């Protein structure tokens, strides 16, 4: 099972694909991180290739690190939240399957966002509906794959699927909240020690 074959499979037969990856030793951790990195590259590429009149930000307002964090962190927190929620509620998925499987859900975005972005170089703003429709379809596909992944990996029926999805989103929000809280406390804590250090240094 090569990476390319898996990509083709997730696009063409997502149900089969998510069944297949539950076989032992089918998935590699590296695939997940590789795909997320490629998704980041596709994102940066789409920002670079966007037609001038479609740009909403100035070049100096775009940060590579920021964009990367905005792909990496949601992916990690989604996987962690989903795993913790579904494990409690009798889901069958393993963490590796969830993490790498989620990364594979980004494949439609990776494959399609560049061609769609290139389209903005020949479309004027009045035809922008076409572009926004296509990006919406891409994100819709990604979302659909995420749902299929949840359903197949954990073997849930529809009602539970919706319930778990909402719970996962909630758990994500909680993780982010705690993260921001920790960050705030930590920076306060550190700045306190720095202040103490400064104070002592001035006194000596």
């Amino acid at each position, binding site marked *: 099972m090569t990476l390319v074959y898996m990509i083709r499979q997730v696009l063409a037969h997502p149900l089969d694909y998510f069944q297949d990856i539950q076989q032992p030793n089918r998935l590699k951790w590296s695939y997940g991180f590789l795909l997320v990195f490629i998704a980041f590259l596709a994102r940066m590429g789409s920002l670079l290739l966007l037609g*001038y*009149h479609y*740009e909403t930000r*100035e070049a100096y307002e775009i940060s590579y690190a920021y964009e990367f964090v905005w792909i990496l962190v949601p992916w990690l927190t989604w996987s962690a939240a989903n795993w913790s929620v579904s494990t409690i509620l009798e889901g069958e998925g393993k963490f590796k399957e969830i993490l790498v499987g989620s990364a594979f859900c980004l494949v439609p975005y990776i494959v399609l966002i560049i061609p769609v972005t290139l389209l903005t170089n*020949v479309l*004027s*703003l009045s035809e922008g509906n076409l572009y926004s429709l296509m990006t919406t379809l891409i994100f819709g596909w990604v979302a659909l794959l995420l749902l299929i992944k949840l359903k197949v990996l954990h073997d849930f029926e529809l009602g539970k699927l919706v319930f778990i999805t909402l719970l996962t989103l909630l758990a994500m929000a909680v993780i982010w909240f705690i993260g921001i809280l920790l960050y705030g406390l930590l920076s306060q804590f550190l700045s306190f020690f720095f202040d103490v250090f400064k104070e002592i240094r001035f006194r000596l």
Partner: protein
Amino acid sequence: MDTLITRCRKWLLAPAIVCLFVMLPQQGYASTPYEGYIWNTEGRDVRSINGYVHDRAIDGAYLPSGPFNGAEDLFIGPDDTVYVTDTGNNRIVHLSADDELIKVIGDTEGPGKLNGPKGVFVKEDGSVYVADTKNQRIALFDREGAFLKELTAPDSPLLGPGFSYSPSKLVVDNRDYLYVVSEGNTKGLMQIDGNGDFKGFFGSNDVPFNLRDFLVRLIATEEQKAKLPTVQALAFSNLAQDGKGFIYTTTLGTDVNQIKRLSPVGVDTLNRGANKYGDLISYGGPFQVASFEDISINPDGLITALNVTTSRVYQYDKLGNLLFVFGGNGDQDGVFTTPSSLAENAEGTIYVLDKARNRIDLFRTTPFADQVHEASRLYVNGRYDEAKAIWDEVIQLNGNYDIAYHAIGKALYKAEQYKDAMDYYRSANARGDYSEAFRQYRIEFVREHFAWFFSGAIVLFLGLRYGLPFLFRRIRRAKAIGGREGNPLKGEVEAS
């Protein structure tokens, strides 16, 4: 011998050169106490060439009428004479265009005695309307300065209970209707007819919807509601009228749409969305909301407004684009201590009244400003190609001037030079217009390269119709052969 002479010459020459430098007259260094800047389309403040420089000052102390005292308003009549509302001295001082005293309005005794007037308006025929603030009336004087009549506080159920009349600024339109700013009144401009009857409120600011307040009011009990601060529309601080009967207003306490152009039916025609006037951000300190206290409109539609928060004067074109900023806080000529009012005369000189220094500072335009004004006048009237030549020169002088790029882009678009127009729109950050030019350019491009596009379409069609199926057939056949050859075991198993 020869060397001795040269040595002596050297010794003599050195002090001579020193003397030369010392005795040369010191070169006068004239610079404004403020730096020219403009807010560009990226939302940054960038250097610009000053549009106005200090010309001269009129100090009341040098006039026969004596020094001003806390003067609040300036008005320049159609004949370029200046009316100064000398609030602290309870009078209106009328000056000629050459800074000479013509007359003083406001009697010392009787009904023509003013009390803390804060605004003045002079009609074409020279009759003077004074907002006699502390007397709560509008006082009318004739062109010689003799008291005519007064318009006392209007009475109307529309005014509501507890209404306190405190007229501070006013204009009079062609129908002799007065538009009065009454201090602390949030319902809009008061429209008063020539007889002093109240005719209604005009062009009031709306109260923006606030979700939090709405939710609080939904939950709160009657007693709690009574304790909540009432939400009121923002009050106008000043007004001005242009030749076409549009009324320009300034509003305090908001950071958007502080300047409005009200049509004769009271609709704002200057701002489509939320426009920010004054400074967009301020460096080195907390952001202060711009407080425009006075506004002046010239016949070409240029809007000049005085922001007392920064003590600066901001000039906008008819469409609301920032052209120039000048002034500031300070004691030199050209900056102000507490500016209170401004006005522009027919020559384009801007008078700024400083009520703490009790003087009027006059600013004249620079050659750069003259060019920009001329180009802007042509541009807002839609004469893009005439304006283009001047805008080109403006860019030569000041590459930071984004409106110039935009204007040239429009001229090029009109001349159907879409590719060049796109470049200029791009420099001006005008994405909407860029997109329009791009659309036209695309049509042009396809038309020019029609043969290529047409043959490309034919090739594509043939390729999809015949080429692709042919390719698939070949691949399938190759696979079938390869499968037979590459896996002989399978065949054998089947055979056995």
